[in-house]
């Protein structure tokens, strides 16, 4: 299988984007019936539901903490979300990402506000087209906000990739597969800090720095879309109260 061309003569990517261009993004808050908070996100072909249940009693009991809440997170992919059917059950990758997402969210959730209680975050990947962990954490943050879980900031995230030596924003699966690197970044923008950071692939020190700057710029736009989705969710409430 010869490696396909990922950047054309005009400097455009396989899906016609410029290197620093995000894919179309769609977010909706409050999409599930039985959670305490939920969100749906589409980033290009990536489609994810996030749901939050809690605070509720800790189960099993012995994991309860007297002075703070417990945050759980499950990142899970539908079997048909990827090219080759994913086996049922949790893969090692899903277990690692569940940990990474939980730790990033733990950074902004005010756990001390719900001692002896637990909050569950479920991230369900319906279709994976690159950037599932960053789209997943972006949606999970909206779901936490929707559930009214106290947080110091709302997390926004995207991935920077490297394809044919060029740094590109928000890589899709094709670019991830044939490219040189994938660096997912999640940020707490108001706290001006990274909360999730990984790198798979080869990047120089200088590329990592430049990539972070691209991600930070993009995250501003993602933040706006998040805020807009939250507003849409809650702008109808006054009407509801009048009805």
């Amino acid at each position, binding site marked *: 299988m010869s490696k396909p061309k990922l950047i054309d003569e005009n400097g455009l990517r396989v899906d016609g984007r410029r290197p620093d261009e995000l894919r179309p993004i769609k977010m909706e808050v409050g999409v*599930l*019936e*039985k*959670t305490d908070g*939920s969100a749906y996100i589409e980033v290009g*072909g990536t*489609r994810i*539901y*996030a*749901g939050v*249940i809690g605070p*509720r009693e800790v189960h099993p009991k012995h994991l309860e903490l007297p002075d703070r809440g417990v945050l759980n997170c*499950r990142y*899970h992919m*539908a*079997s*048909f*979300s*990827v*090219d080759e*059917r994913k086996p*049922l*059950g949790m893969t090692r990758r899903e277990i690692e990402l569940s940990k990474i997402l939980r730790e990033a969210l733990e950074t902004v959730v005010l756990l001390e506000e719900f001692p002896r209680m637990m909050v*569950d975050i*479920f991230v*369900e990947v*319906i*279709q*994976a*087209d690159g950037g599932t962990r960053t789209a997943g954490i972006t949606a999970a943050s909206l779901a936490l906000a929707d559930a009214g879980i106290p947080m110091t900031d709302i997390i926004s995230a995207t991935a920077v990739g490297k394809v044919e030596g060029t740094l590109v924003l928000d890589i899709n699966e094709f670019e991830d597969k044939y490219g040189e690197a994938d660096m997912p970044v999640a940020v707490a923008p108001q706290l001006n800090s990274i909360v999730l950071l990984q790198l798979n692939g080869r990047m120089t020190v200088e590329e990592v720095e430049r990539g972070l700057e691209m991600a930070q710029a993009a995250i501003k736009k993602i933040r706006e879309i998040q805020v807009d989705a939250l507003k849409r969710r809650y702008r109808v409430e006054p009407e509801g109260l009048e009805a």
Partner: protein
Amino acid sequence: MSVGMEKRGYAIKIMKNKVYELLKMGKRIDERALDQLREIKISTRVVDKADGSALVSLGKTKILTGIKVEIGSPYSDRPSEGVFTVNAELLPLASKTFEAGPPDERAIELSRIVDRCIRESRAIDVEKLVLIEGQKVYMVYIDCYVLDYDGNYFDAAVLSAVAALMTCTLPVYRVVDGRVEPVGERMKLPLRTIPVSITMALIKDKIIVDPIPTEEEIADTLVTIGYDSEGVLSAIQKSSPGLLPVGIFKEMVKMGLVKSSEVRTKLEEAVGRGG
């Protein structure tokens, strides 16, 4: 084990009497008629990476099914038939009563009922899914995920799985020297009939269709019946404890037949439009 038992206490009895008083007046707690299903919404081809997919809402119950087709070996005792399997998962974000982890008995029962409705009605023409007799056949993996659970996942899952099957396509292969090569085209999955299930609850002497959770909790028992396009039954499952008088069950069989035909029409219209 003994799931749901703890719910049935005194409060349940009061609720049951209240619901029954309504039923005697021909009304349900959500305003429906006794034999009325909730609104059905069907979107197909919702997951591009799947070979077939459908997102179905039955009221607020929402189920996503995706189908992946692979090439594999037939069972040794059925060399001239393709293979399909059904799996169902009750995602923990769909209900506070679902838990993460391997499928529990409810999820297994659900997947087996969906499987039975499809398999026993002979809906999939498995004999057309053979590439090389005894060696290579299509393997069709039908995976249902419950995204929102507001009662009656049985009928919603069958609808979702069948809608996904109706829009499922397979890559066409030709056989060259005992090996299969993709031709570059796709064909429709061969279907022979459109199975539909109807779930009914018995509350004292009243039969209601498509129960919501409050009705499921107070019901004396629950029955799911699968029908094919000819009105022949392909599956019955009494899926909860409780006494089911024979006469009541006979009424259910007939009521289900009528409702299944109604539902099938909606399904065919929806997929026809979308597909």
